[in-house]
């Protein structure tokens, strides 16, 4: 049974220049204990999708204009649509059931509060308890994310910690109430490569230990390859491909996915002189999306048909889905 089932989620921003369709008809499901990757270029709506799940779209100008977010709140009962909950009910779910970590560990922590105060915040909000109790749980969380001498570091301020340590603190904050789902929005982008691997390992290990599901949002296929089982490719606010991770590397179906994979710098020596492959052009203006396929202007295989109607997200074999008339 799926833990989370998103149906046709649409988040639009109403600006003076027009309506920005940041998330436009997104559907997917997430099972218990699963790690789902979401990849795409900057500005394709990944973060807005993640924030929509938390119902934290800045309003105004943004608004979730349609869709359902079915969430299996209890073991026995039926799923609940998060979009139908009252703000108060939703606040009780944020941090407790649904948690999130961000890209920038430098700015995601409040500079005037100690890390202990910040990790303790979620515990205090959701489980209450005495100061000492909260402190004990906080130390436990710091230990869990691998911070040495947590009894001492708990009183540190964010500026006393390195980037990797801060990201660990962020993870401790997010996991302090043992959420069912962790949404990680580019959790390793701001870190250097060795720390990236440590943080990814930590997330994977904690996921196993706590039995939670992870939605990993990233633009880095290396990260996707390392931790996810299933991956969704997003382009211009829509999903263009969904597939098991190994298959997407072996045989990407959508021209966009193919372009993304080709753009990963190769490790071979002979590649030193060759120019890095890119996808020509950039993400289309989300206010004035072209008629037909959103990828038409950058697609090497574009056909007249692509400029008239947009292809549906079609089911392929092995549970794969692709939004293209001429896949592969």
């Amino acid at each position, binding site marked *: 049974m799926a833990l989370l089932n998103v149906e046709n989620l649409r988040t639009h921003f109403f600006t003076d220049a027009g309506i920005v369709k940041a998330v436009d008809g997104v559907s997917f499901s997430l099972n218990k204990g699963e790690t789902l990757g979401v990849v795409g270029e900057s500005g394709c709506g990944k973060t807005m999708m993640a*924030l929509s799940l*938390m119902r*934290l779209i*800045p309003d*105004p100008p943004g608004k979730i204009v349609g869709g359902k977010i079915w969430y299996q709140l209890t073991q026995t009962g039926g799923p609940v649509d998060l979009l139908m909950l009252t703000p108060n009910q939703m*606040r*009780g*779910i*944020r*941090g*407790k059931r649904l*948690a*999130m970590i*961000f*890209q*920038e560990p*430098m*700015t*995601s*922590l*409040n*500079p*005037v*509060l*100690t890390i202990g105060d*910040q990790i303790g*915040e*979620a515990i205090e*909000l*959701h489980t209450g308890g005495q100061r000492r109790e909260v402190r004990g749980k906080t130390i436990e969380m710091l230990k869990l994310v691998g911070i040495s001498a947590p009894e001492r570091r708990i*009183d540190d*301020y*964010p*500026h*006393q910690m390195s980037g990797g340590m801060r990201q660990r603190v*962020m993870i401790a*904050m*997010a996991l302090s109430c043992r959420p069912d789902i962790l949404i990680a929005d580019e959790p390793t982008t701001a870190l250097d490569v060795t720390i990236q691997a440590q943080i990814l390992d930590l997330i994977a290990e904690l996921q196993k230990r706590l039995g939670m599901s992870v939605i990993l949002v990233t633009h880095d296929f290396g990260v996707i390859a390392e931790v996810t089982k299933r991956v969704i490719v997003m382009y211009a606010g829509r999903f263009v491909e969904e597939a098991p991770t190994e298959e997407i590397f072996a045989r990407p179906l959508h021209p966009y996915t193919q372009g993304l994979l080709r753009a990963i710098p190769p490790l071979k020596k002979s590649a030193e002189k060759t120019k890095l492959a890119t996808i020509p052009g950039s993400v289309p203006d989300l206010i004035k999306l072209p008629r037909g396929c959103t990828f038409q202007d950058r697609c090497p295989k574009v056909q007249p048909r692509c400029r008239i109607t947009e292809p549906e997200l079609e089911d392929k074999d092995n549970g794969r889905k692709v939004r293209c008339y001429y896949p592969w």
Partner: protein
Amino acid sequence: MRHSYASLIWRQFKKSRLAVAALILVISLFVIAIFAPLIASDKSISIGGFKISAPIPFSPNSYDLSRILEGPSFTHPLGTDGQGRDVLSQLVWGSRVSISVGFVAVGISVIIGILLGVLAGYYGGAVDIVISRLIEVMMCFPTFFLILAVLAFIGPSIYNIMIVIGLTSWTGVARLVRGECLKLRSREFVVAARVAGARDRRIVFRHLLPNALSPVLVSATFGVASAILVEASLSFLGFGVPPSTASWGSLLSQAQDFMDVAWWLTLAPGFAIFLTVTAYNLVGEGLRDAIDPNLKT
């Protein structure tokens, strides 16, 4: 060791000697104001049978008509006024008026400023537009004349002065807090707090305000200096505290009559005002510089 934000600012503040000197002056003035009844009084205090007289053995209102307009001497370090009152004693008591007006007025303006600033900056939209226009309208008034006009209606008293100065000087703080909140509310740690399930009130008081407070502190320090100056001006013009209470402004005003015969009467309160206002401004500048050079976050 805890390197809190405050201790970082303090370390930076200490680098400026002038600011530290000014801070010492500000603190000593505060102490003098609080302990005025012990420092300048003609009543002696008895501790365990011993009678100890105050360092300045004159009350600000003890007349001695035989010693009118005496120049500075050993018994009266700053001389006496037209009714034979000790000027130093009056200055000491006058500091209570100046400092209490300064702090209470700034307290009122900071509270109003923070409240309106947070509302405008955090909620934005229509609330922001209304408050921003209100701030602009307030700023258009020539504040000093507004204060004079209001005091003419409700009558001068130290409390009215505090309230009126407070009610007319919040615009700076409000703009500052609004700006800080606008800047901070989109910062990721605010989103992170919301992700953790915090409600608006908690985000404002725990995450926004502490971050916005340092510039407010700087502005409040300058505010105290200007409030002291406004009170002195009001008292000088006769709209200030009633004549029975000594205030630096009213001392100056009374000194006018004897300007050509008793220079110390003008110089003493004038210098006191000058020193105090300068000290507060220097502390404010020191604080601003300590906060400004982007503390390593």
